[in-house]
């Protein structure tokens, strides 16, 4: 999210005023001359009326919590109108006046330790900070800052202590840390900070500050949580409360030209659900954003009217905004050197040189996809899906291949009616009945994205004069369990001393399970070297002079050697994580890299030995063959009560076929005992076990049938999760025949 503001700052040609950015310097004690100023600038906050902060004790119901936040109040005033001082020109800067007041009762040593060091900003002469400890009995002790130490880099400062401005702009302000003296369990620590920051907005049409997602429940219970946003009439505010969170309310500001929006949450405990929780979908949460507009022309902004507390947008508003944003992409910067439109033009020229005009439509679409993927492979960052859609759609346009623009929202955030920010609008391109989503290093045309599965979407068109924009509702494709699979074919045998299980495992991944695993599988392989072949590009060596080619070959050889050396260690580490024991690694081989239409599935084999699966009983051996499915989720007693709906990510199916060759001279028993089948509407776990021609054969399946499950189905989830867990501990018995 930070990048959004940063990019805007760059694009709009505005910059953060130099004095705000503290140069990196050696850490040292604070200059004592600052101390009076720091205190003076913040101590007025103590005397501001705030009933919530006068509470002397946290409620007894939270005595067993490590600490209780008694009050947390953040006030941010966005002010373009008032001047920052005599020398500051009007209309040049947006000022941020931030006040934070925080009060916490510390119940134990853990929280005392957690708050033994706190951080504050003193980056301008206007910044201030005061802290105090309130002992049981109400004795108040101010925290002396004279031994505060300046921090060397912004990376040393926890985000929690950074000002809103620094969090969103990434400004390198000067911060200090102070060790809190005389802090003990039972104490109340309270601090208040005041910061004033300014942003030079000359030449910028508008600045969208980072969207904020305030989840009401925190790591400690919170008695009182207040956020005040005050804006002048140059700024716009929007907010949406979800899952039962309180709403921002518009209140009268002291100055009639200002608007004030206040969020207050009280009495919020700590949430306990552990497994399958998507916090954004189920926890009470409020999201909000401030947008500053420098001129009256606010066309294209996803905002309400001046002074309006906007809580959502109609289908038409979203579609219009999405389109306007989409067409603006061409003028944005692809990198530091050229614009997205420049990139489109260069790419089209490249493609034409390769004969793109002669390709069939389908081949062109496919090649464009792989061409763009190849660019992404060699970049540090993925493209946003808006930029990707623009480039992809523009290249199709060059070949007169009609495409449609699809917008939707991430299912991690909510559906389209909950979209509040530009950043929440997702983009894809539709060609006939095929959807093309943003690509990653390994994606294949048409592959789905987890966060967009089965989402409500709109197909939108260009708004034309005199005609309303066309907005067609559309549902993005879903992926069911059979679409997202991993199949393990495991051939196992016992080592000659019967101590270890020797495993040869072939894994085949499809759909979203492949997406989640292909990164590790391809790690430390040289997939990138031949990536150009997927779109019919030329090898980098094709146009080289002999000496250059020789150097190229030597470089490639060095990389290959390095990867070859490092890959076994990496695979071994991954297997040890998976099986939670030391293993002996033998081999890893990719059979199908899953990076093309022709080889869409990811398939690889691993060979290794596991020492922990065999136990003894006299002359008999017991083999934990089912343990080869790896550790299964254990849901503890205290986690069996469920408060929130269940989110398992996406529907998927995992299957194992395990063959164990029975060692010569031994007979296997206990096979029938492994048979189990638990199936319901939300999932399945089954194990079919049999002996065939001296081999024990297990066919096991675990299926998550739905991605989102109502909380009242928790027992159904538990039934197949538990079955898998229990089965993973079963043994078969190998008995000497004589």
């Amino acid at each position, binding site marked *: 999210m930070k990048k959004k503001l940063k990019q805007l700052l760059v694009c709009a040609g505005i910059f953060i005023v130099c004095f705000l950015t503290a140069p990196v310097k050696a850490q040292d004690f604070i200059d004592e001359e600052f101390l009076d100023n720091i205190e003076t600038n913040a101590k007025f906050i103590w005397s501001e009326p705030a009933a919530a902060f006068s509470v002397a004790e946290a409620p007894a119901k939270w005595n067993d919590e490590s600490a209780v936040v008694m009050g947390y109040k953040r006030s941010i005033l966005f002010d373009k109108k008032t001047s920052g001082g005599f020398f500051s020109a009007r209309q040049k800067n947006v000022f941020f006046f931030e006040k934070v007041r925080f009060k916490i009762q510390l119940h134990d040593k853990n929280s005392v330790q957690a708050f033994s060091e706190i951080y504050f900003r003193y980056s301008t002469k206007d910044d201030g900070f005061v802290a105090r400890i309130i002992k049981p009995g109400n004795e108040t002790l101010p925290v002396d800052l004279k031994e505060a130490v300046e921090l060397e880099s912004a990376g040393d400062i926890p985000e929690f202590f950074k000002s809103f401005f620094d969090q969103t702009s990434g400004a390198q302000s000067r911060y200090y840390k102070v060790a809190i003296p005389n802090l*003990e369990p039972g104490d109340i620590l309270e601090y208040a900070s005041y910061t004033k920051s300014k942003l030079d907005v000359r030449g910028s049409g508008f600045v969208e500050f980072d969207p904020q997602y305030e989840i009401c429940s925190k790591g400690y219970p919170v008695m009182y949580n207040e956020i005040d946003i005050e804006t002048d009439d140059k700024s716009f505010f929007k907010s949406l409360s979800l899952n039962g969170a309180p709403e921002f309310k518009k209140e009268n500001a002291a100055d009639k030209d200002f608007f004030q929006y206040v969020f207050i949450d009280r009495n919020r405990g700590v949430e306990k659900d552990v497994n399958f929780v998507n916090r954004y979908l189920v926890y009470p949460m409020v999201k909000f954003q401030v947008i500053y507009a420098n001129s009256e022309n606010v066309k294209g902004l996803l905002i309400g009217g001046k002074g309006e507390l906007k809580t959502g947008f109609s289908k038409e508003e979203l579609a219009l905004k999405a389109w306007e944003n989409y067409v603006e992409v061409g003028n944005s910067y692809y990198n530091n050197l050229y614009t997205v439109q420049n990139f489109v033009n260069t790419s089209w020229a490249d493609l034409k040189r390769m004969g793109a005009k002669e390709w069939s439509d389908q081949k062109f679409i496919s090649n464009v996809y792989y061409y763009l993927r190849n660019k992404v492979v*060699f970049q540090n960052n*993925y493209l946003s899906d808006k930029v990707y859609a623009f480039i992809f759609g523009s290249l199709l346009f060059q070949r007169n291949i009609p495409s449609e623009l699809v917008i939707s929202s991430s299912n991690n955030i909510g559906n389209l009616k909950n979209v509040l920010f530009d950043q929440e609008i997702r983009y894809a391109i539709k060609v006939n009945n095929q959807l093309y989503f943003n690509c990653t290093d390994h994606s294949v045309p048409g592959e789905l994205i987890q966060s967009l599965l089965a989402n409500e979407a709109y197909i939108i068109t260009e708004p034309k004069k005199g005609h309303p924009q066309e907005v067609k509702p559309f549902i993005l494709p879903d992926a069911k369990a059979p679409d997202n699979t991993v199949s393990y074919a495991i051939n196992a045998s016992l080592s000659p001393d019967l101590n270890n299980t020797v495993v040869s495992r072939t894994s085949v991944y499809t759909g979203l399970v492949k997406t989640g695993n292909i990164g590790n599988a391809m790690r430390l392989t040289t997939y990138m070297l031949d990536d150009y072949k997927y779109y019919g590009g030329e090898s980098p060596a094709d146009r080289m002079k002999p000496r250059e080619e020789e*150097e190229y070959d030597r470089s490639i050889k060095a990389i290959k050697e390095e990867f070859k050396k490092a890959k076994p260690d990496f695979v071994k580490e991954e297997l040890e994580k998976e099986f939670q024991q030391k293993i002996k690694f033998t081999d890893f081989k990719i059979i199908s890299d899953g990076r093309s239409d022709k080889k869409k599935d990811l398939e690889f084999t691993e060979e290794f030995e596991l020492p922990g699966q065999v136990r003894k*009983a006299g002359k008999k051996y017991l083999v934990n063959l089912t343990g080869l499915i790896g550790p299964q989720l254990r849901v503890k007693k205290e986690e069996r009560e469920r408060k929130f709906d269940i989110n398992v990510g996406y529907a998927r199916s995992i299957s194992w076929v395990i063959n164990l060759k029975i060692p010569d001279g031994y007979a296997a028993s206990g096979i029938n005992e492994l048979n189990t089948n638990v199936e319901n509407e939300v999932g399945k776990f089954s194990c079919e076990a049999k002996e065939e021609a001296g081999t024990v054969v297990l066919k096991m399946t675990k299926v998550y049938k739905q991605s989102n499950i109502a909380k009242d189905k928790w027992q159904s989830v538990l039934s197949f999760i538990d079955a898998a867990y229990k089965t993973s501990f079963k043994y078969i018995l190998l008995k000497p025949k004589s």
Partner: protein
Amino acid sequence: MEKPSQPLGCLFSTQSYHFSFASMFTRSLLLIIIINTSLYSHAQYRVNDEDAANADVFSKKYKDDDVMCTASHHYFTFDKGKNALNDKVVVIEEETELDFLSLKKFASLTYPEFYNKFIELKAFKKSLKVGSKYATSRMQPMDRSVTSDGVFFDDSRVQYYPIRFAEKGSMARVTVKKEYTDGRYLTRLFFGENYPVKEQVFEFKVPEWLTVDFKAINFDGYKIDRQENKKGGYINYVFTMKDIPASKQEYKSIGHAYTDPHIIIQIKSFNNKGETLKGFDKTDDMYAWNNRLYGMAGNKKESLQSALPKIIQGKTTDIDKIKAIYYWVQDNIRYIAYEDGYSGYIPAGAQDVLAKKFGDCKGMANLLTEFLQMAGYDAHFTWIGTRSIPYQQSMPALCVNNHAITTLYFQGGVYFLDGTEKYAPFGENAYRIQGKEAMIAKGNTYDLKTVPLTTGNDHKILSKADFVLTNEVLSGKIKIVLTGNERKDFHQSYQDLPISSQKDFLNEFLEFGNDNMQATNIKTSDLKNREIPVSIEGDVDLSNYVNTISGDKYISIDFFPKTLERYMPDEKRVGGYDFDDVMTFEDEISLTVPPDTKFVDVPEKSEMTYDGYEFKGEYIVTGNKIVLRKRIVIKNSVIKKSDFENWKKFLASIKEFSKYLLSITKK
């Protein structure tokens, strides 16, 4: 969105140092740069034949290393100066030149130079070899604080150069000039580095006015040449060691100071205008220095007086008062360290530590000593080296001590009280200082006393459990008792947890790390009392633990502590283990099965005894009840590599014994 990257740390850097590379390199290499998705540069690309040949030879010798040092020369000269305390001291200048050779294409090395208020970094350059000449880089080194996690503020800093090598055989040179502003702070020099070194040379040009000694530590078994030449009013001492493999970081390794050859520099005295000034010649000198800094703490006893009565309120006996003071410091003073320059050696004033309720080891020892003295006890500030340091106090050097405690003489006994050791009972010492010599301040003189060693039997984890098998369910009661350092370690973990997590912690403790075990009805000893053994007991259910096959049941009741498996050395392990602990595990676990069933194939007894560790395990059947008695004692905290054969057998025998499942069948 940022992409996950290939782990190419050793190949490429994400940082850019030279922007002229594009013109120097071929387009093909640019592709590789793009592949890596980040800018980088190489040290050089033209390699002369000799360097290439060397790289071929050494890459075979040092297969696991990317870069080696072909020549490392440190040249020390001595001068007179003044330290920050305005003392006349010996100032040492060190000039270093190191040549690095790449053993493969695209290797990299980060070369650091550490400095602080006692070590001034005067010059630090990197040069890259092109053909047969070195060209000095105009880039300045990176500079940053290296304050460690446990320290709030100190003066430790590092400057470093990342060095990229484009080719196998590429070379780079690092030159350093630094000054030890007080020669006492140049304490020791190790020959080994974390890269192989073909030749490491330490040369000291010692003037006649200086008396200095170079203590050779761990030289036995290594070929280290020592030369001494007198010339023009100087004696040149030259120590040379060749073909040194890279030092490797390993899990629980034995401290390098125990095993690796190094020199301790001992400035004994020097002559200044006819006056002989002392350095560290004898232990007395070391004490005088320590005691002087201790005296600079500036304690104000009057500021402590109001606090003491509250701490010992209600305590009538001496022992209770002493404990009250000791435990109060443990419980109420948080470890927060300021170690800036001499404040790394001068304790914070006792009144400051009391007022802030935080301090480092020196601050805590200072406050504890003051409190005990004020209460009328014979307590003394004390310096000590932890077990990571092998030296005795007879070696007068600053590297001997790294910790401060309080020594109490009480009723004929000597007690070592460590304020930083939370939840340590009076009379018990942390293993990290056991066997170590303590330097006890007694005004103008001092005592040397050794902290007594304990044995594995003093630190136990006792597990007693009684299970009953009913149908398919294994249930029973379990009790764990912890003594010695095991008890202290438990407290340190438990008491520092959020109170909201403590119950879960106890449950997990009783569940032996076994995923199938579910503990309920937990009861504990008084966990506010650090002096009594910790006892945790409860009911456990192992409902998913019984394997029934063809009517017989197979169960394990051997909850072998899995942690020992981590200490099975693999083929790559270079050095021994130091557990920094000794301990005993004792299990007594019974299982009662229905009267119509019996145990068959009862595992045989296993017993192994070595000097440093022993194991005994046996199953005893009485009717329908079986009892497992198992005992593992780690008597030595150190397992040397020379002992690995026995150690492996030992671990293997425990593993083999633990492999057995009990077979239960119908009578």
